[in-house]
């Protein structure tokens, strides 16, 4: 869990963006990574491991650990800490291995 600083922010503060996590409507900030947006919204677990189903969350926030993997707009194995949050993103817990999407 992370919280936003209560102090005044700089001009670089982006707009609020609406997105969802496991169907829950949430709000984030343009410019934040998906992982940062999840942490700020109190999301504790973002995936379950393929090996044992153990709960995991972002660890390194710089693309090295691969523990922040989430499903974004139906596509799995996305590193939440490497992707900027976009309006309307549908983020979901990744349960185990990535499920390959059926071609539409």
């Amino acid at each position: 869990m992370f919280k936003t600083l209560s102090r005044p922010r700089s001009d670089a503060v982006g707009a609020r963006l609406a997105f969802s996590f496991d169907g829950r409507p949430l709000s984030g900030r343009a410019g934040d990574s998906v992982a940062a947006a999840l942490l700020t919204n109190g999301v504790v677990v973002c995936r379950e491991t393929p090996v044992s189903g153990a709960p995991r969350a972002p660890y390194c926030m710089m693309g090295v650990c691969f523990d922040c993997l989430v499903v974004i707009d139906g596509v799995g194995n996305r590193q939440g800490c490497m992707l900027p949050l976009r309006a309307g993103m549908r983020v979901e817990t990744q349960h185990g291995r990535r499920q390959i999407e059926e071609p539409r």
Partner: protein
Amino acid sequence: MKALTALGQLDARYDLVVVGAGPAGLCAAGKAADLGLAVLLVDENPTPGGQIYRAVTCSPLGERALLDADYWRGAELVAQFERSPASYAARCTLWSIEADATQPDGAAFEIGLSLDGCARLIGARQLILATGAQERPFPIPGWTLPGVMSAGAAQIALKSAAIVPAGRTVLAGCGPLLYLLARQLAAAGAEIVALLDTTPRSHWLPALAALPDFLRSPYALKGLGLLAQTRRKLRCVAGVSALAAQGQGQLASVRFERGSVAQTIACDTLLLHQGVIPSVNLANAAGCAHDFNPLQHCWQPRLDGWFVSSIPGIAIAGDGAGIGGAESAALRGAIAALGVAQGLGGIDPARREREAAPLRAALGRALWGRRFLDLLYRPALQFLAPPQDETIVCRCEEVSAGQIRDAARRLRVTGPNQMKAFLRCGMGPCQGRLCGPTVVDLIAQTQGRTPAQVGYYRLRPPVKPVTLAELAALPQTEAAIAAVLR
């Protein structure tokens, strides 16, 4: 600077491709471009600065005093780079480097790049790898629990999103960054309930020999002041000899030992840090030779006086060449660029020497005090090779310390590559970044060998994920098609 936003905008080949937009990469790319070379800087992040200057051009932090002046100076480095004629592709991941002797006009390398779900292969006559450093893995029981993160992660979150851990926060480990972060987070409103210092007491005596050089370094006074300040304001526990994160499904408490006394602290976030080590995956996969540095206890590439690796045409600058800090990174980037410029005929050897001389002098000064820090803060063995069998070492494949020790003892594996074949450790998406150093230390300890004798993973491209669709869509050369068609 020419900002490129799609792979189609890149040229088919460049004189120099620089990988990583931290201080080393920014200085290397800018200088080489100013010296007349066709330069491309690629970086996987959306904005420049690497990790140390993460989000320096776009940080949402309003209260600038929360971060040091050293951090904000990174903006000048970016501005200097932006004044150069170099090309810059952000959000662009470099996933492979291969030697290419078939290029007709002298390009020596073929590199694989990925941006927005598309891949492309382009040519580069020379490369400077400036991929920097990563946190040293800190395997303790329970370190995979949600709520446990690296100290660097919290600093990235502060710089790039202006957020701090909510609830009770414990910092644990050793090294200057731990104290710096504690002060930054506390000032930003985080509730730091304790700082658990694992600096081995026995290291103070040998470190004292290097103290004089440390005291005349620019960061000695700052460091000592920081230490004193933090100790006054926060609960600091020194001489911590064991750590464990506890909880069901998420972090609930930290158990630590200090001598014969054990204590448990309830907490919501645990931030771990025991120094940084060079990120070696790209250089390793490119074939660059690496040696084990016993003082810093990490692998680093073998380099000559101009930071050229064992592969001619590939230079490595910044913390990826060996841990030295941001200031030394910028200087090494500039020196490497001078070497490349002379090699490609842009400047003559006399000018190369003349311009490098003051940079080398400054680099020497920037590295004063390094030895003291390295001697003092080398982690204790139990934090490099976890004694508790149940500690997960390979986070991706969930391989434990006990399993690795067992394979090292019973199966007498020759090194981490054979260990990988037996246990799958190192086969996960992180490509051994979080388990490699620990696996090496566990094998070394169990078999009575040195890390240098044990060796490291043999890495291969792609060093970052790339999809089959991207690879399938790559244009193929006539030779490549002829090679598979009958």
